[in-house]
Structures are given as structure tokens and as C-alpha cells.
């Protein structure tokens, strides 16, 4: 294992430490590979649907990693909210817009690419420095970060335990997030709705076509008409339901 990432040399097993069981080890490397490959495909794919699906695979890998870290509730939420909710929203938007992408990486934006790669290298170097300084087993850094060995306590990562935090210590952020979600939903509806009237002026119709989006009469008339019909039916003797 150590030969894969020589900088992160803390995988040496000290005598007092238990060697990791093989199953979780394999699971970690498989899930990590799935996550990274999925993420890279998501960023580099030309096809938007392909990119979204790669990101879904990446998020499933992350959910598996959360399971390995005994965060069971978060793993479920990751699959439900990310893979099941947010990415479906992305798929919807990709399909609604239905746009071919001309060129995924703009050549004149070599500057942006260089900046991104520089950021990646910077992160890797800083992380390597940190881990190098920490030394095998975490050393002094581990004690400063209050890192504890061994299995987590009973009930760690369950819904009940996380719920305890949300209704005591994290009550205010919890409520704030609920308000934020309401604002986001209303905001998304407002943003997506107000442009409907303008959209008819952007699209060009072939000559002779009737623009079905342009209402031929006010929609309110229709509603009022239906209401009026019902009112008449109710007013007729014996005509009510």
C-alpha cells in the first residue's frame, strides 16, 4: 500500500496498531477509484448526460466511503439527495436544454486550464507537506486533532444520534437550513417562471406556423368561463350536482 502513495507514508503498521482487515481495505480502494474516475469523467466528458451519469457513479462511491466511515445516515442521504434528487434535476435540465456542446475545452482558455492544474498541484503539494510533517501514525498532529484509535462508540452515525445533535446543539442551523430551502424553492420557481413570456419573442417560428405558446385568448377568460358555466348549472332549477 505504501508504494502507491510514498508521500503519505503513514500506512506502516506500528506494533501496537491492528492491521486493517482486508475487506474494508479492498472496499476503500475500489470506492476511491470509482469516485475519482467518475469525477474525472464528469469534468472531462463531452456528452452532458455522460458527465451527469459519471458524477452519479462518483456520488455512489462517496456514499460507500461514508459507510466505511460508519456514517450510515449520511450514506443514505447521499444516495437519496445527491444521486436521487440533485442529479435527476441536472438530467432534467440537460434534456430540456438539449444542447450540443461544440468544444468542451476552449483552446484559448489554456490560461484557465493552467490555473486549474496549478490549483490541483498546489493542493497536492500542501497536503503532502502536511502529511509529511505529521509523520507515521499522525504523530503530534494526531494528538492536536484529537484523533482517537479504535471503533467508534455504539450508535455512532445512526439517525437517532444525528437527530440528537439537530434538536440540541445544531437547532439553529437546522432551522436556518429549512428556511433556506423554502427560499431556494420559491426562488427557483420565480427564476424559471418569469422568462416564459419573454421566451416567445426569442424563438423564431417558420412562416405560417401558429405559436401555441402564445395564448390566443387570455387564460383567465377560460377559467372564468368554466366558473360561469358551473354557476349557471348551479342556478338552473335541478341543475346542481
Amino acid at each position: 500500500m505504501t508504494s502507491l502513495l510514498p508521500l503519505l507514508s503513514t500506512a506502516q503498521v506500528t506494533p501496537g496498531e491492528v492491521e486493517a482487515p482486508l475487506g474494508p481495505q479492498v472496499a476503500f480502494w475500489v470506492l476511491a477509484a470509482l469516485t475519482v474516475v467518475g469525477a474525472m469523467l464528469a469534468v472531462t466528458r463531452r456528452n452532458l448526460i455522460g458527465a451527469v451519469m459519471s458524477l452519479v457513479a462518483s456520488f455512489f462511491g462517496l456514499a460507500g466511503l461514508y459507510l466505511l466511515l460508519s456514517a450510515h445516515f449520511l450514506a443514505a442521504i447521499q444516495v437519496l439527495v445527491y444521486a436521487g434528487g440533485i442529479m435527476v434535476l441536472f438530467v432534467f435540465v440537460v434534456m430540456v436544454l438539449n444542447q450540443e456542446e461544440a468544444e468542451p475545452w476552449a483552446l484559448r482558455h489554456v490560461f484557465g486550464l493552467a490555473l486549474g492544474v496549478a490549483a490541483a498541484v498546489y493542493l497536492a503539494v500542501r497536503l503532502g507537506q502536511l502529511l509529511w510533517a505529521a509523520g507515521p501514525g499522525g504523530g503530534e498532529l494526531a494528538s492536536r486533532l484529537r484523533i482517537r484509535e479504535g471503533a467508534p462508540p455504539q450508535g455512532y452515525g445512526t439517525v437517532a444520534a444525528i437527530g440528537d445533535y439537530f434538536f440540541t446543539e445544531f437547532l439553529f442551523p437546522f432551522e436556518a437550513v429549512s428556511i433556506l430551502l423554502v427560499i431556494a424553492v420559491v426562488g427557483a420557481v420565480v427564476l424559471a417562471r418569469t422568462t416564459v413570456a419573454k421566451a416567445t419573442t426569442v424563438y423564431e417560428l417558420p412562416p405560417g406556423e401558429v405559436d401555441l405558446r402564445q395564448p390566443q385568448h387570455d387564460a383567465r377568460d377560460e377559467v372564468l368561463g368554466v366558473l360561469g358555466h358551473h354557476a349557471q348549472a348551479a342556478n338552473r332549477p335541478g341543475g346542481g350536482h
Partner: protein
Amino acid sequence: MLPLSYFNYYLALGAVLFAIGAVGVIARRNALIALMSVELMLNAANLTLVVFARAQHDMRGQAVAFLTIAVAAAEAAVGLAIVVGVFRNRRSTQLDDLTMMKH
């Protein structure tokens, strides 16, 4: 489940994911890919939070990660609505085409 020696790998994985997301935001021209890359970066931060929560046997990190997921969902909803709105007006999802504020 894994001993302490693996936490570094988890942190490295989080850094790699964040870097990939950063490259996507900076280098890609498509607004949807940029939004997806932002999601990726949020996930990388989440992974780091969960790793430290597990390392300290403290569930506060998981609680914060949960809140991050909620904020990410809100961000995705509003961001996609903006992309759809821009597309309706300008027939494009390329970030390069949004130069209105320049002039």
C-alpha cells in the same frame, strides 16, 4: 472500520476530488458542468468533514456535512433555474457568451 493509518488516504482522496472540481469550474465553459463541479467540490469538503468526525469519534462533523448537503441542494435548484432562465433569453449555456456585464 479501518485503523487510523487510512485517514490520510481519505484526506488525500478529498483533496483530489476538490482539485478535480476546481479544474472543472475554472476550465470548462459549460455552465452545467461548472455547476456539477461545484457540487463535486462540496462533496470533497463533506468527505473531509466525515473523515475528521470519524477520527474524533464526534458526530458534529456529520451534522455539518448534512447541513452542507441541504445547502448544496438549494444551490443546485437555484443555479439550474438561473441556467434555464439565461438559456431562454440568450439561447446558450456557455459561460463565455455571458458578456453582457462587460459592455
